[in-house]
Structures are given as structure tokens and as C-alpha cells.
């Protein structure tokens, strides 16, 4: 009797282990931390893209308008993919698109805009990536919807049709 229990026990254990690991295969291994709602944007200083003038963050995000802060770089391929959605949004009156040029060469960035058109109302430079860290960003591309100096929505990765729709719904 005793000899029969052991193999059955073994089979059951292994099938449970197999089941757990098989289920685990389908889980997404990408960890996205919970984003605290309504984070205040930090105060920072940056250089403007075209004029190289110093601007403060409170000169960029004024009043209770909607701002879309988009972190981009000419070397970032997903940025090219999301560009058409930014162009689409730039036609909207009630939202201002702010670009944050991340660790980029100025010439390449200017070529990028000349080729694909410029959806941004204002661009500032983030050459060492520290402003991105202060905003709590992970890399490029990343997009923040900002109102009243607060981050309402944070999009990690490129924009797509659904996200564009969501943003349009939020700003209506």
C-alpha cells in the first residue's frame, strides 16, 4: 500500500508545479509600478530648443490648460512611430504639446523635426536626462498629461490609436 502512495503523490506534486509554472508563462514580466495619482511636477530649469534661452518650468506649464509633455529623441525609433499621433493632437486647440528632447544631438533633432514636421508648441533640452528622472520617467518615449501643474496621466512607451482616443476623451 505504502509503495503506491508515493508515486501518486509524486505525480500530483509535479503536475501542480507544472500547472503553476505553465500559468506563470503567460504573465507579463514587465513591472510597471503603481503611479500615485496627481503628482506635482517638479520645478526645473532647462534650455529652449531653438533659442537656447533658459526657461523655468513654471513658465512652461501655466494656468489650468492641458499640457502634453512628450519625451523624445531623434535616435529613438518608437518616437518616429508615435509622431503621427502627436501631429494629430497638435491640431487640437485646447492642448499644448511640450517636447522634451532627451540626450540628443541638436542637429539630429532638427533634422528629425524637419523631416517629420514639428508638433510641439515648445521644446526644451534635457541633455543629461536628469529632468526626466525628476519627472519620474523611465526613458523615451514617455508622455505625461499635465493640468494645474499635476500629472494626470502617464504613458510609458509610444502612443497608439487607443491612447490617443483616451487623451482626446480626457481633454474634452
Amino acid at each position, binding site marked *: 500500500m505504502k509503495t503506491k502512495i508515493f508515486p501518486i503523490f509524486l505525480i500530483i506534486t509535479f503536475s501542480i508545479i507544472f500547472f503553476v509554472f505553465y500559468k506563470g508563462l503567460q504573465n507579463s514580466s514587465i513591472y510597471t509600478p503603481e503611479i500615485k495619482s496627481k503628482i506635482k511636477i517638479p520645478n526645473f530649469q532647462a534650455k529652449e530648443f531653438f533659442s537656447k534661452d533658459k526657461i523655468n518650468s513654471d513658465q512652461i506649464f501655466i494656468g489650468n490648460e492641458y499640457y502634453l509633455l512628450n519625451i523624445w529623441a531623434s535616435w529613438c525609433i518608437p518616437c518616429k512611430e508615435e509622431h503621427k499621433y502627436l501631429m494629430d493632437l497638435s491640431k487640437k486647440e485646447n492642448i499644448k504639446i511640450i517636447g522634451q528632447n532627451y540626450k540628443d544631438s541638436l542637429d539630429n533633432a532638427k533634422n528629425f523635426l524637419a523631416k517629420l514636421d514639428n508638433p510641439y508648441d515648445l521644446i526644451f533640452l534635457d541633455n543629461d536626462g*536628469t529632468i526626466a528622472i525628476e519627472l519620474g520617467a523611465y526613458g523615451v518615449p514617455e508622455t505625461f498629461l499635465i493640468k494645474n501643474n499635476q500629472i494626470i496621466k502617464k504613458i510609458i512607451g509610444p502612443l497608439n490609436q487607443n491612447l490617443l482616443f483616451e487623451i482626446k476623451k480626457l481633454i474634452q
Partner: protein
Amino acid sequence: MNILKFLISIIFLINFFSSDLKARNLETEITKNLRCLICQGQSVYDSDSEFANSIKILVEKKLDDGFNEKQIYDYLKDKYGDWILYDPGFTKNTYFLWLLPILMFLFGGAIILRKVILKKKKL
């Protein structure tokens, strides 16, 4: 011959420790305790990704601004959550994690104690 070997190994050891001490400034210490969020299984210190490099620059800047170690951890925790720290603080989400080893230790100890007492009684 043996004395020579001994001397050489001592010189090597001294060299090793002194170079280790030089590398251990506060910035490396801090970046070693930070998890690189976009890498897998690497600290900010180990990684050469854009994200990690920016954090290194930021830590350096904050140290220049007079931030101390704990303030920098708090600052980054505020931006990225507990996940960025390798050493999770004692919060309501982590108390189980912290207390589990102690509980297991007590439980194991209790089992051993009981066995010992039972054995003594039998003797």
C-alpha cells in the same frame, strides 16, 4: 622562500584593500543600493543604460546640493516607489517579509526544543 611568499601575499592584500577603500565613495555606495528599473537584475551602479546614467548624474548633483544619503533615497522613492531601493523599508506591505524569518526561526526553535525535552524525558 616561504617568507618571500608571505611578504608578497601581504603586499597584495594591502593593495587590494586600499583600492577597495578608494572606490567606496558615497556616490558608488548609493548607486549600488539603487535598482536599475529598466534593466534586469542590475543595480544603477552596474548598468550603463541611459536611465542608470541619468540617475548617477542626478545623485552626484544632489550630493553637491548637500543632500544626505537618506534624503536621496527618499527623493527617488517618491518618484519611482519602493521598487527602486534594494532594501525595502518596513511598511504595511513588507512587514510579512521582514517578520517571516523571525517567525520561522522561533517556530523551528520550538520544534527542536520540544524534541530535546521529549528525549530527556525518555532517558
